[in-house]
């Protein structure tokens, strides 16, 4: 069987709970697609090499770097960006209640300039879901893929632990 290599590829995936079909060049990263084609600019293009984490999104619930993921690798998968975190208002419109992790970040001043925040939030949601938000050291280790140049790490750690406690209490 000889494989068919294509220069344009149709991909169907779920984006923030809504199904989408798109046609892309194979080299299109999930990050570039989200920002340039879909207009979801929450995920940021910091280093574009997997070093900073500000492009972190969830793919099938797992956190990943959008800059290290091709759209063609997301066929049939479910992608969640920071825009999909807050409660949905109507048919796929965003703007509802803040997600508990978002609220915890606001309550704990877990950012200064905010550039890393979308990635920190997505990483934190996953970190809590994975069960790694147990104590300071564990949060620092499992959140190390998200760099904050304002160095709000103590506040970010506190916010993640507070959100984890809240989640456990529900």
């Amino acid at each position, binding site marked *: *069987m*000889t*494989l*068919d*290599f*294509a*220069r344009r*590829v149709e991909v169907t995936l779920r984006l923030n709970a809504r199904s989408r079909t798109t046609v892309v*060049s*194979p*080299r299109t*990263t999930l990050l570039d697609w989200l920002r340039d084609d879909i207009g979801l600019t929450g995920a940021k293009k910091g280093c*574009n*090499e*997997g070093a900073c*984490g500000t492009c*972190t999104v969830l*793919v099938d619930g*797992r*956190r*990943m*770097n959008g*800059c*290290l*993921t*091709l759209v*063609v*690798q997301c*066929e049939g998968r479910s992608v969640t960006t920071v825009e999909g975190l807050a409660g949905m208002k109507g048919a796929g419109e965003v703007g509802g209640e803040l997600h508990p992790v978002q609220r915890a970040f606001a309550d704990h001043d877990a950012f200064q300039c905010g550039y890393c925040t979308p990635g920190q939030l997505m*990483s934190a949601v*996953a*970190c809590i879901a*994975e069960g*790694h938000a147990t104590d300071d050291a564990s949060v*620092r*280790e*499992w*959140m*190390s*893929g*998200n760099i904050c140049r304002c160095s709000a790490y103590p506040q970010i750690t506190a916010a993640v632990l507070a959100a984890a406690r809240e989640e456990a209490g529900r």
Partner: protein
Amino acid sequence: MRDFAYARAGTAEAAVETLAGRQTAVIAGGTELLNWFRLGIAAADRVVDIGGLDELRGIARDGDELRIGALATLNEVGEHPLVTRLAGALASACLQAASAQVRNRATIGGNVLQRTRCPYFRAEEPLPWPCNKRDPGSGCASLAGRHERQAIFGWTQDCVAVQPSDPAVALAALDARADVLGPAGPRTIPMREFHLTQREAAAAGEPMRETRLGADELITGYRLPVSTAGQAYVKVRERASYEYAIVSAAADVRLAEGAGGPRAAGAGEQRIAAARVALGSVAQRPWRLTAAEAELPGTPLTREALLPVIERAMADAVPLPQNGFKVTMARNAAVRALLAAGGAA
């Protein structure tokens, strides 16, 4: 990133077929390949995606062997109860590699094929300096420039780079074998021989070759003999997390039974029955300290007793002008890994 044509492989055989002749790259997680494309380290007209091959997934025990599919991610390997229990050094090495996000994409098959982190090599094209890996025959800017992070074993005047993979060090220490599929069918490569030093590659007439894997071959998985001995992976780095190793060490230690009485009598009473130990980031391959392994049975599990054994096994180290400290650091990492594996640290 230049564009390429893309296809999803339905079977491992179909993927291997595409590797013959034309310039085709394999993508699994993609964490390394995409950066190669961006920097110009690799270019491919075609990319074949093996990410959907369920046959390459999964972690299972098969008698006395642990089988790990090439597509298992570093987080899956690192957190799998079978790996934690029967190959603890590998689990630890996986979880100390990269970041949580990268580990959710990066696969154990692709990880050992990552290239060196030498900053002269990892620059965007066109390179402003010589690098024999990027432009054969141009020279080695690192040898003439900064090389404090480079090799202390096996380097040549052509290249002084080290292989940075953490899992590869554990796989070599634990006598894992890679299952490989090529056009002629499957074969296995022992992981302690998988990578080549610059000197080994030069002796084989291919000075820039880095592994024994053929260009038309695919890693499909690994098999490790299960071990109930204590294990540890020690990684020394400039920050506590999400950083490449300056040096690292994987160890597996079985203690002599009853030799020293209860541990309460003092850790000095414990003696080693058998041990395996490998260093990482000291050469372009994981560096098994076989001379030490021969000497360790009967050695007390103490820092004082282990230091001279490791020192003798590292006597052939040839540090570069700027990295003599790595000899000491690697020695200490090996001792720490042995102590931790034996339960004394």
